[in-house]
């Protein structure tokens, strides 16, 4: 099946480096991090985290915070795009990615169960205790009746959702589709990554010789994808031109050192877009800053991209927002295409400098037309997305 580029006609996001493209560009251009040692999880971790200001009102549980954020994002996008006026409810789909949205509510039920000295958690679970609660709630608020699902593929969750939206539009299942993902920090995730010893206790520096791990963050974004119609006046932020997924089939948390799954997901995305590697002008890497990821991703990129293609990880600025990360990085890519700028971490001592081409802050060798964004998750869930400035 041949695929057509899919326009992104609406977006709404929240990240530790801003919730508007202007703020994000300003922070990236001045290399201002959204990470801080002052955060609400000081009792669990000393490392910096990237906290965000979600769109909320009143005192809410973290799951309600994401529900509020989703409601805000859909409302904001709908206001600008008039999506609900232009399409019937069954023509509008929704794919949402998350890895931690329901964690807090689950932990709360576990606490209640422990307080009752019981062991059967199922008796304490309600419809709220699953990730899909958010999509179901949004379907009650908005006229969205097309194909929909909640996907949870760890750190590539939002990328998986964006990919499914791309397929749904291309195959004619829906004419418009909300896609994206959000995650919110919680004690389980923070203590878990601490146990794996992959936090950097200082600011993370992906692809630097000095790198020691990642900085966790939260946030994400929601996008409206629509079927392309030539000559329409709707604003298009960028075009999703290709998507590709692959499984590492190697280890639950470590990446294949040969970068097999990463290479495969990038090849699949290129094939989907009908591109060769030389059609890609910049790679926004998954680049967590861990030894395992950066070595594997560098190897994969070096294998596939024979001509020097600038690569950087903007997680140095916004941190790793887990399931919401791909959505934030898609906004970074949109900002890069719109502003014709590249951003990279604050360091000079690049590792793998003789095999991959590290992007230089603000410097472009040729105009940015097409960008690849990688997202890799636990369980070997690898996703690559290709974003273009123009439809052709």
């Amino acid at each position, binding site marked *: 099946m041949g695929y057509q580029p899919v326009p992104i006609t609406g977006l709404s996001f929240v990240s530790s480096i801003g919730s508007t493209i202007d703020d994000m560009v300003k922070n990236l251009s001045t290399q201002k991090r959204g990470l801080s040692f002052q955060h609400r999880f000081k009792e669990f971790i000393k490392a910096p985290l990237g906290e965000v200001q979600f769109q909320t009102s009143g005192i809410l549980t973290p799951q309600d915070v994401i529900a509020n954020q989703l409601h805000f994002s859909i409302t904001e996008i709908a206001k600008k795009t008039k999506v609900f006026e232009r399409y019937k409810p069954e023509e509008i789909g929704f794919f949402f990615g998350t890895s931690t949205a329901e964690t807090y509510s689950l932990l709360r039920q576990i606490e209640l169960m422990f307080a009752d000295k019981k062991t059967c958690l199922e008796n304490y679970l309600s419809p709220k205790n699953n990730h*899909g609660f958010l999509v179901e709630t949004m379907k009650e608020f908005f006229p969205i009746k097309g194909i929909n699902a909640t996907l949870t593929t760890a750190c590539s969750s939002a990328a998986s959702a964006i990919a499914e939206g791309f397929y749904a539009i291309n195959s004619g299942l829906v004419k418009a589709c909300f896609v994206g993902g959000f995650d919110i920090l919680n004690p389980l995730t923070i203590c878990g990554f601490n146990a794996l*010893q992959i936090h950097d206790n200082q600011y993370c520096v992906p692809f630097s010789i000095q790198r020691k791990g990642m900085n966790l963050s939260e946030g994400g974004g929601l996008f409206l994808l629509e079927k392309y119609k030539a000559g329409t006046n709707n604003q298009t932020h960028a075009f999703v031109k290709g998507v590709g997924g692959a499984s590492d089939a190697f280890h639950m948390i470590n990446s294949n050192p040969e970068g097999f799954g990463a290479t495969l997901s990038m090849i699949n995305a290129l094939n989907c877009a009908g591109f060769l590697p030389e059609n890609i002008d910049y790679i926004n890497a998954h680049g967590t800053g861990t030894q395992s990821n950066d070595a594997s991703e560098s190897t994969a990129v070096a294998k596939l991209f024979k001509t020097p293609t600038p690569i950087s990880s903007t997680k140095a600025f916004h941190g790793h927002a887990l399931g919401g990360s791909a959505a934030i990085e898609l906004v970074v890519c949109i900002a890069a295409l719109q502003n014709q700028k590249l951003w990279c971490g604050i360091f000079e001592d690049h590792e793998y400098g003789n095999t991959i081409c590290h992007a230089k802050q603000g410097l472009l060798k040729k105009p940015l037309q097409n960008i690849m964004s990688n997202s890799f998750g636990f369980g070997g869930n690898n996703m690559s997305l290709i974003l273009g400035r123009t439809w052709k």
Partner: protein
Amino acid sequence: MEKAYLVYKQSLEILPGHEFLENNQLLRRMTPLQKVSVEIFALFKKNADFIYNNVIQKLKTPIYFATKYGEIQTAMQLYSMILNKDFPISPIAFQHSVHNCASGYISILHGLHASHLTFSSGDSSFKNATELAISKIKSGTLSSVCVISADESRQLGEVKASAKICVIANPNHFEGLNSYCLKEL
């Protein structure tokens, strides 16, 4: 419009003491949810080698894994450690707490490099995964999907895990698959 057929289905329930088809080191560390998922896939491979070899392997069939609540027993174990300030919490348990761990293990054990998606929408999880699989096959986006649904529950102090597997395919894309078609979807 292409056609989508159910070509294989099976259900399985396991309790502690279950004898597994393929015993290996990874299995010993797995949660009940992961074990039942791995076991039902191994049973499918054993019972339907034609479909496994020609559909799953040759055509790089994606796995859609559906779970209502995911790894709730593991989440319980980890949160108990956090409440008791038993730090660091178990790194193995943490890596086993993500919803897509079971499908990750299936891909690792069988060397499957096709992408695997995990759906978690409570009671709608399996329905969502199956509906998307059928839609993608009918629209020609995919030729086949392997849908696995699994969940675990604690009853009378024992953790019981149950799973079901459905392989959905377009028989026009595989020679010889027509005779395996159970139902048009």
